[in-house]
């Protein structure tokens, strides 16, 4: 009988203990979860994926805080995406565009109004270029605001500034390739500005722009720079830029 009476008492004592244990467990779980969220997140990447080209561009290790969209706003990545869009649409435009004073403007009109989807592809090329200038500038602003240019990232900052200048030059050469009167005026101004550089100005203008007229900036020289020379340099610098981010310790929150 004594045992029968004692049993419910033990149960009564065990119930609060179990509740306490469960509460403690939940607290521990929450603390662990919070700690895990603060710790750097290791992206699970297999060995095969680690070696491929995409993961050379993308970082293998990403600190947890830097995963917040509002930290980077994905501006660097979006600039690269714009570059890819520009590459694809530019490649498609190359099938029909013919550089030259008399052919540049007319081939552009053909693309815009005759070739199926030519107008949309050209518009996409144009708008991706405009948006890229905006995202690159905003990316630069974000880098300054989060002090991401400081040691040891000075070299990458210089690469970024070079990329900004390259993007602007690419935009300018693209404008010249329209072959309109306005592009001719712009080419004339650019040639005259380069001519101000003592000694090598005229030669530099010849190398960069060829011989544009005041009525059309479209030349074969500008076309080659715009479609091949400058994009290749920009692509190489971008890949180096991404690799340097990894090398310098990745994107880190404040």
């Amino acid at each position, binding site marked *: 009988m004594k045992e029968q009476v004692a049993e419910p008492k033990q149960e009564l004592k065990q119930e609060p203990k179990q509740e306490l244990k469960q509460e403690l467990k939940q607290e521990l779980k929450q603390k662990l979860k919070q700690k895990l969220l603060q710790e750097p*997140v290791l992206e699970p990447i297999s060995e095969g994926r680690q070696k491929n080209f995409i993961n050379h561009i993308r970082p293998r290790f990403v600190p947890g805080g830097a995963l917040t969209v509002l930290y980077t706003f994905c501006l660097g990545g979006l600039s690269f995406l714009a570059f890819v869009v520009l590459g694809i649409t530019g490649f498609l435009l190359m099938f029909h565009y013919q550089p030259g004073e008399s052919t540049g403007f007319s081939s552009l009109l053909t693309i815009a109004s005759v070739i199926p989807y030519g107008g949309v592809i050209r518009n996409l090329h144009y708008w991706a270029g405009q948006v890229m200038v905006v995202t690159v500038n905003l990316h630069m602003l974000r880098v300054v605001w989060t002090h991401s240019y*400081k040691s040891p990232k000075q070299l990458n900052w210089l690469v970024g500034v070079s990329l900004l200048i390259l993007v602007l030059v690419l935009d300018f050469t693209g404008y010249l390739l329209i072959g309109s*009167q306005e592009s001719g005026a712009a080419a004339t101004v650019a040639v005259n500005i380069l001519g101000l550089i003592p000694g090598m100005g005229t030669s530099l203008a010849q190398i960069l722009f060829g011989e544009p007229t005041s009525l059309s900036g479209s030349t074969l020289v500008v076309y080659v720079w715009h479609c091949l020379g400058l994009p290749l340099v920009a692509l190489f610098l971008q890949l180096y830029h991404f690799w340097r981010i990894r090398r310098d310790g990745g994107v880190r929150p404040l």
Partner: protein
Amino acid sequence: MARSPIKHLIEKEGIAALFFLVFCTALALKFPAGVGTSNQAPSVSHAVAPWIFGPFQILLLYLPPWLGALVFPLLLIAGVAGLPWLVDLWGVKSGQRIFVVFFGLIMILLIWFMVKEFWWT
């Protein structure tokens, strides 16, 4: 700051890329890119630079070419490129101030250009 339930960077990049592509396509479908004036047409009296080079046009309009088109832009580029070293000289907080001065100057010139070429005329 509230954390997003999406934890992997590639998923966030994918979503951002999707929004970006939709945005660019919408712009491309809605606003056709300009072609300018044909070189067969009568000469235009006043050529307006694309908005990206608006600050240049303003500088060239009011300053001598060697100053507005060479010295001033080169100083600006040198100042922006040398930011990490300027910060070492003048302190950490100066970085944002220096950049705001450079960036602000370009923005003022751009707004000046926009007002002059698109709104005033």
